[in-house]
Structure formats: C-alpha cells, structure tokens
C-alpha cells in the first residue's frame, strides 16, 4: 500500500460505525484509541499508587479508602495486605512504564503524527496498525484482569526477577498472577512490534516530495529512533519471558540454580538469575529511552512553535537522539552493579553509562538556548514542555550518581533510585504526553481544550510532582529500601532514621494525593472539550509542520487533494526577512533564501 494507492480515498465510500470507530484502520482514529486506553490505564495506575502511598505514610492504620477499593480480601479492617502491597507496586509500575508511557505515548503520537508530519495518506499498513491497537487493548484487559485474581496479581516488582517470580510458594502473586502478567506482556510486545515496524516503514518510505530526512520535524526523528529501539530490544524480553515460562511450567533451569522453595529441595541446577537480569535490562534500559524520546520529540516541536524560534541546533538534536539510541544498548549493566556480575564488567558499564550523559546534556542546553531571546507563549502545552525540560535535568543529574558503581552500592534499590527514574522518566514522559495532548488536541478532535484549566492543571501537577519525588531522594540517601511495606525495621535500631523516613513519607503521600486529584481537572477538560470544546481552526498555534495543512474535519487520506510538497525545514519561526513569524514547510524557498 503506497501513498499513491490511497489518493482516491477521502471522497466516497461511507463507513459504518464499526469500521470508523472500532475496527478502524485510519491512523488518526487508532491514535485516539491508544490515547483513550492509555488514559484509562493511567487512572488505574494512579489510583493503585495512591493506595500504597496511604500505607507508606500511615502504616497499619485503618483507612476507608483502602477498604473501599480493596475490600475485605486485600484490606482487612482497612489495613493493606502485605502481599497486595507488593502487587499494587508491581502492577502500578508495569502499567505506567509499558501501558501508559510506551503503548500510550508512542501509540498515540506516532500514529497521529507520523503520517501527518511526513506527508503520507496513512500508515504503511493500516491493517497491521489496527491489529497493533487491538493487541494492546487485549493486553491491557489482561493486565487489569490480573488484579482480580484470587491469589493476587504479579507481585515480584515490575522487573520480575526470578526465582521469586517463578514459584507461587515464594510469593502468591507468582502463581496465576504471574502467568497472566507474562501473557499480557507477550501480547503487548507483539502489539508494540507491529506498531514499530509500521512507524519505521512509514518514515522511510512514505515521505512526501521534498521531505528529506533532514527536513523532518524532530518529533518524527524521535518516533523513528524509538521504533528502532523497540524492534531491537523487545524481542529480547520475549525470549526472557519464554525462558521464564519454561522454568515455570516445564521445570527447566535457565534462571534457577540449587534452590529450596518452601522446604522443597529443587533439582534445577546450572541456571542463573543473573542471566535473566541481563536479558531483562537489555530491553529495560532501551525501554527507558523508548519512553523518553517521544516525549522529547513532542516538546522539541512545541518549544519551537511557542517560543517562535527555531529549535536550536537541529542537527545536534538529531545527532544526540541517534547517539542516545545507540548508547542505550550498551549500558544495561548499570542496573546490575551489585548483582554478582563481574566487577570489571561493572567498570565498563560505568564508562558507557556516563557517556550517555553527554548527548543528554547537549539536548538540555539546546532547549534552554531555544528559549533564550524567544517570544514565549504560555499555552498549556508550552508549560508542560518547560516542566519536561526541568524534570529531565533534575532526574538526569542523579543518574550521574547512580552510574558511578561505587556510589550505586550505597543507594541501589533505595528510594533514591525510585526518585531518579520517576523524575527523569516518569515525570518527563508524562509532561511530554500532556504537552502533546494539549497541543495536538485540535488535530485529534477538531476542538480546543480550555487553556485556563490547562494552566491550573499544569501548576498543580508540577508542584505536586516535585513535592512527591524531591523528598524521595533524601529518603533514599537516608537508607530507605524500595518495595518495603513499612520501615519498622529501623525501629529499635536507628530511631532517628525511622522518624525521618516516616516524616518525609507523610509529606510525599500528601503531595501524591493532591497530584492525583489534580488530574481530575485534566480528565474533565479532556472529555468536556471532546464534546463541547470550542471548534478549532486549521492552524491554531501557527505551526509550520504539515499536519496543520490538513482540514480540521478528518478525512480519510488526510489531504482532500494532492499531498503538499515540502520546501523547507519545519523551524522557520521569526526568520529575518519574512513577513509572518512563521513559514509553513509548504512555502517554497524565496529567491536566494537558504534552507536552514
């Protein structure tokens, strides 16, 4: 299916409700389907986190919110069950990382923007694209279903380290819960692979006339590299998962060696849990960039548009995306410094990991320089983009400490790590996602979201997000391990430590609750505007890229007539000599004018 085959679309053939809204093959509709699903999953994940934050701040106290959501089974007398605590943490992490920030973010924006910004009628394969969404949907349902299992959901942490994740006798969640988790993730990965292949092919083959790779918006570069990372790394997780399934059901010993579980001496011998850690993090580290890069891509576009300035160092930005993409494959061992891996290897990973800080720094400085002497309009999207740059900095710098293996010894698996990755990945990606939704909402729904509500949403979210994750650094340096039901271990040993952890945990949980509630503003704004929002104009933000040349009302095939030809890069904002402060990509270069 090439772009040409599509040109006759858009005029005739009425679609039924089912082919238009449910089994749609149109990339714009599929993007929206991903978004709505991801929003739903995010709401669930936020609620789960508030439930376990209640336990952390007020351990062992009866709480009616807990009994409301978890009932007598998992919160007898309103006190969270220990096993369920770990289940909540596990499913919260899994949903956020994979379903919201991978499936949701790439699924929504790669789908929506790739054809629109490269100038294609649709994705290379609409059918695969549709299948990709429905697999995502199925895997989401399965993951949610696992919360209702009698023995509880998977509870070995989102990193599912064996042998804990293999034996039901080791933790109840490793029974049916883990089986469903593995099934769900396998389907999820299939979905992600289909999507990624589609994105790659579309970017490579379906660009409109004049759209050279060096004229692509940075969004597309980011989605493109993200898709490549996904295609290269997710299959490794599949193999890790298959080997684990074999260990679980066939009694093989890939990850098991000389263990006794619940008093039963097992014969499995010769495997190693460390093998799993390698396989997991070979995906796991690229995964964090799979989450982050699309968010960076979205903000690059938004920052340039709203600062009315070209993004600074376009080529360096592309270069750093590529460098980050490449390096992210050779740093996975920084999650395993104290796993029992050879210390020499640890040293190598220190080196490669710290290298990645260089392209990251380049990106940060380029964003900041883009703002310098800009003419900044504070749309909600722009606010969230600034939030992203801030959280990327704040989380990135702590990465430097963690990457130093000697220091990692002191803080590995403490709340310092939790703070690091939530700020650098969680916040950045969520901010990027919000920015994207506010910015491209007119493209998705033909309506405008309410800007004032968006601003209130931003400030509340920014303050509560830092309120949650900033103190966490200190809790972590203070020796609070992650995945602890409570910190009573310190009682009778170091009461000062115990009190400090407890005090800060209360602060953190209160901010978490405020931050969670603040999202109601967004939800309201989103759904209200979908139906009742102000009707959008074609190019509300005065942007240069191609999506703003399509009509507000969606047409199948995106452009009613010819696909426009591209003559310049997308960042000609406030170019000297031009009348307007923006020049769309479709405007031919003037006599003697230079392409960037």
């Amino acid at each position: 299916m090439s772009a040409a085959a599509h040109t006759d679309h858009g005029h005739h053939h009425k679609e039924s409700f089912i082919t238009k809204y449910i089994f749609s093959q149109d990339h714009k509709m599929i993007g929206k389907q991903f978004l709505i699903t991801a929003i739903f999953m995010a709401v669930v994940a936020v609620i789960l986190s508030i439930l376990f934050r209640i336990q952390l701040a007020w351990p062992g106290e009866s709480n009616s919110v807990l009994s409301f959501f978890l009932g007598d089974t998992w919160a007898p007398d309103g006190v969270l069950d220990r096993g369920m605590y770990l289940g909540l943490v596990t499913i919260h992490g899994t949903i956020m990382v994979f379903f919201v920030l991978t499936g949701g973010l790439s699924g929504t924006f790669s789908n929506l923007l790739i054809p629109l910004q490269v100038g294609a009628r649709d994705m290379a394969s609409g059918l695969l694209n549709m299948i990709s969404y429905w697999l995502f949907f199925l895997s989401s349902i399965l993951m949610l279903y696992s919360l209702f299992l009698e023995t509880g959901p998977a509870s070995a942490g989102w990193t599912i380290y064996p042998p804990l994740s293999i034996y039901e006798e080791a933790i109840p969640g490793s029974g049916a819960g883990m089986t469903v988790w593995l099934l769900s993730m396998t389907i999820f990965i299939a979905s992600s692979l289909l999507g990624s292949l589609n994105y790659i092919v579309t970017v490579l083959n379906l660009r409109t006339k004049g759209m050279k790779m060096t004229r692509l918006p940075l969004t597309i570069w980011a989605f493109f590299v993200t898709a490549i990372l996904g295609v290269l790394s997710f299959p490794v997780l599949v193999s890790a998962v298959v080997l684990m399934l074999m260990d679980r059901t066939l009694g093989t010993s890939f990850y098991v060696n000389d263990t006794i579980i619940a008093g039963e001496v097992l014969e499995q011998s010769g495997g190693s849990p460390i093998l799993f850690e390698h396989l997991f993090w070979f995906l796991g580290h690229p995964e964090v960039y799979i989450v982050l890069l699309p968010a960076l891509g979205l903000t690059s576009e938004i920052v340039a548009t709203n600062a009315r300035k070209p993004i600074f160092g376009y080529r360096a930005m592309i270069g750093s995306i590529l460098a980050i993409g490449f390096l992210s494959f050779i740093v996975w061992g920084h999650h395993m410094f104290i796993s029992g891996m050879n210390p020499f290897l640890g040293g190598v990973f220190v080196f490669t990991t710290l290298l990645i800080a260089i392209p990251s720094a380049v990106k940060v400085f380029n964003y900041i320089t883009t703002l310098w002497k800009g003419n900044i309009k504070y749309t909600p999207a722009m606010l969230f983009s600034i939030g992203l740059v801030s959280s990327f900095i704040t989380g990135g710098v702590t990465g430097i400490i963690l990457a130093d293996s000697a220091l990692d010894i002191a803080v590995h698996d403490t709340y310092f790590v939790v703070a690091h990755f939530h700020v650098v990945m969680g916040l950045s990606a969520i901010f990027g996602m919000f920015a994207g939704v506010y910015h491209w909402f007119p493209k998705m729904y033909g309506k405008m979201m309410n800007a004032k509500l968006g601003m209130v949403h931003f400030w509340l979210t920014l303050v509560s997000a830092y309120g949650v994750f900033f103190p966490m650094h200190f809790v972590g340096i203070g020796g609070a391990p992650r995945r602890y039901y409570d910190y009573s271990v310190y009682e009778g040993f170091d009461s000062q430590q115990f009190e400090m952890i407890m005090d800060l945990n209360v602060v953190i949980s209160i901010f978490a609750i405020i931050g969670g509630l603040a999202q109601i503003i967004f939800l309201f704004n989103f759904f209200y505007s979908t139906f009742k929002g102000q009707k959008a104009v074609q190019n509300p933000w005065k942007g240069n890229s191609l999506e703003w040349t399509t009509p507000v009302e969606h047409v199948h095939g995106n452009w009613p007539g010819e696909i426009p030809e591209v003559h310049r890069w997308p960042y000609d904002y406030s170019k000297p000599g031009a009348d307007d402060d923006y020049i769309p990509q479709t405007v031919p270069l003037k006599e003697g004018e230079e392409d960037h």
Partner: protein
Amino acid sequence: MGMKFVVLVVVVLAVIAIAQIMRVYELSSKIRGKREEDIDLRVNNINASLMLVFLLLFFGSFFYMLAVYGNGMLPEPASVLGEKIHWLFNVNWIIVIAVFLLTNGLLFVFAWKYSYHPDRKAHWFPHDNKLEMIWTVVPAAVLAVIIILGLMTWNEITGEPSDDAVVVELYAKQFDWTARYSGDDNKLGFSDYKLIGNAEDKSSGTSYSNPLGLVTDNSVLWRVQGLNDEIAALDENIELEANNLKAYSQANLNKMNAKVEKLRRIRERVLDMTEMYGDSINAFAEDDFVTKELFLIKDQEYFFVLRSQDVLHSAYFPHFRAQMNCVPGQRTSLKVTPTITTQEMRSKDNIPDDFNFILMCNKICGVSHSNMKMAVTVGTEEEFIEWKNGPLATVAINDSIVAPAEIDMERMDWPEPAHHGDHGEEHEDEGHNDHAEEGGESHGDPHGH
C-alpha cells in the same frame, strides 16, 4: 454503604456544576469572540511570573531539605570503604548540584524573561557550532573526572580482601539471615544445599538438623537417613493406594511418584558426596559457628561470603554504606571493615542512645521482605570473645549427635537417565581443595561459581 452513596451523589453533582460553569464560560468567550489559543498578555505574564516564583520555591525547598536532611540523616559512615564512598558521594553531589542549579536556573529565568510581547520578535538563532562544541566538551571533561575517581574507588571496593580478613558467611533465606563464622581456621566448611534438612532417628529418639547444608561425614549420613524416611513415607502411601486403602486422585498419585523419583535421585547424589569430598570432608566445618546476630570487631576487615537458599536477597548495611546481592546457587562477596563501635556511635551527640547497626534485605524477596533483618554489633576484640562464648553463638554442625548405626545406604540400581546424569558428579573433583585454600569457598556443586 450510605456514606458511599452520599459521596457518589456529591461527586456527580460537583461534576454537573463544573460542567455548567464551563458552559457559561465558553458561551461568554464565544460572545466576546475570544479564542482558546489566544492567550492574552496578562495571563501569559502571570504564567511567566509563576516561572520565577516556582524557581524560588523550588530552590528554596531544595536548600531547606539540604540543610535539614543533607546526607539523608544517616550517621557518618562506619566503615573504611563507607568513608571512601561518602567522600566520593560528596564530590559528585557538589558537581551534580552545581549543574542542577545552573541549568534549572537558566531554564526558569529564560522562561520568565522572554515571555511573549507583541512588539518583540524572537531572535533568529538556529545554531552555533562553537557553543555546541563547548557544551559537548565541557560535560565530557567533567565526566572524565567523575569516571576516573569512580573507577578508582570501585576497584578498591571490589578488589581482593587482605590476608587477615575474617571470613564470615551470610546466609539468606525467606525471611531471615544466618551468619556463619569460619572459626579459628578462618575457612568455611563445605556446604551443599542438598544436605539442608532435618532427620530423626526413631529408635533412639535423637534428631539432627542442618539448616545451612554443611558437608561432613555425619551430616551426609543423617541426610540419607532423612531422605530414606521421606521416601518410605511416600512409598507407604503409594502402597496403600495400590491396595485400595486410600483414594488419592491420579494427579496426586503422579505427584507422589514423581517426588519419590526425585528424592531418590537426590539421595544418589548425596551418597556420592562422601567419596567426592574424600579426606577433606570434615576439614573446615568443625570450628564454624552460627548466630542470628552479627558481632564485628572494630577495625577488623571482614570478608562476607553471601549465599541464598531460595530467591534473590541483598545484604544491605546502610550504616557501612555496603550492599551486595545474594544469589541462589552462587557465592557473592562483600568486604567490610567497621570503624566505629556501637558504643562509640551511641555516645555521639546527634545519635539516639539506643542506636544499633543493622543488616537488612534490599532485594524484593517475598511478602515479608521488609521484615528481613539482623542485628549487628560492633565492639572490641574482648567483647567479641565474650560474645562468642555466650549463648548466641552455636556450633554450625553438631557432630556429637552421631548418626544411627544402621542406615540403608544401598545404591539404587536404576539406570541413571542421560538427561539428568550431568548434574554434578562428573565435574566434582575439579579441585575443591583449591577453593578451600582461598578461604571463602565451600563446595558441593561445580555450577556454583
């Protein structure tokens, strides 16, 4: 229930109310012809000022927390390597904080300063090779320093222990720790997970337990005895079923049969051990002693050998800034030299009088993960000797409990099936003596390292 209903009604009403307010707002902006994308200057300026306000708040709260919780309030590091880590942490911390303040500062100040004004046009500045060069090279140089300092410390931490390091095993299982001191010879006796278990001699009523799976002549005999009993009990049930005296489901029967076979295979390997270890079988275990509390001597280097029985655990000493994972079927290690005694710690100003060092588990290991701990005391050598002779430390392997004289030691004559024949025996003599020389390593399974 009534309460929930009321809450629900209130929520629904609130949503309706907000929707109505929005409606009015939207209508009025429609009348005024205001478009959502046109942020008016006043609102834009408010957002810009909020950038500055936020920056002040952000940095203010950061400095406040730094002042109050600076090093996480953990007392000063109480080990030699901990001090080094602490120093390195501070160096990095300063660099990191400088970068954090500089970049966040620039970001929010620019965001505040360059907010929109209709009379201004943004400065056309698409790239500048020199600038970009600077902010590639400068971070690279700083990182080079960080890497070099870091790797120097890392090598020191992971390097060989000194010759007079005392070897102690930390044995992890759900959900507790056991410490095994290597005793006067400073060598740990061999251990093998297949020997872990209890056994009873019904005729004399004596019983024997081997929680760490130490390998000695006696423990092998006891384990065979235990396995014989287990197999016999299962066989009996299977027999009963065959005579229609019990009604097991087929699934249960299969399970029992499989278990008998498995236990027989394990028994075979246990029977091999005596020969496998040869003369050295009893060599190092006799002076080992185990405790559920750790007592360390100040300024003495310890070489901890970590083992796990079931799932991953992690030995985490927050006050020593030391941590290492415990991996089932593998031995990992950790060096610690305590520098401050518990008493000295307690006498410091800002430390509570009931302070104690602690060993925790820091790798999710099950439902009671957060309860898995061991008390650690640091004292003088004299205190250690006193403690060692006290009630807390017990012999690791009680070989005074002699195994029953008549244990069925007959080897099974079933053919060793090819697919599990490769589990250990053949490789066994690849020099466990060497390992014993090294001090830490005990033996039993060649895959273990």
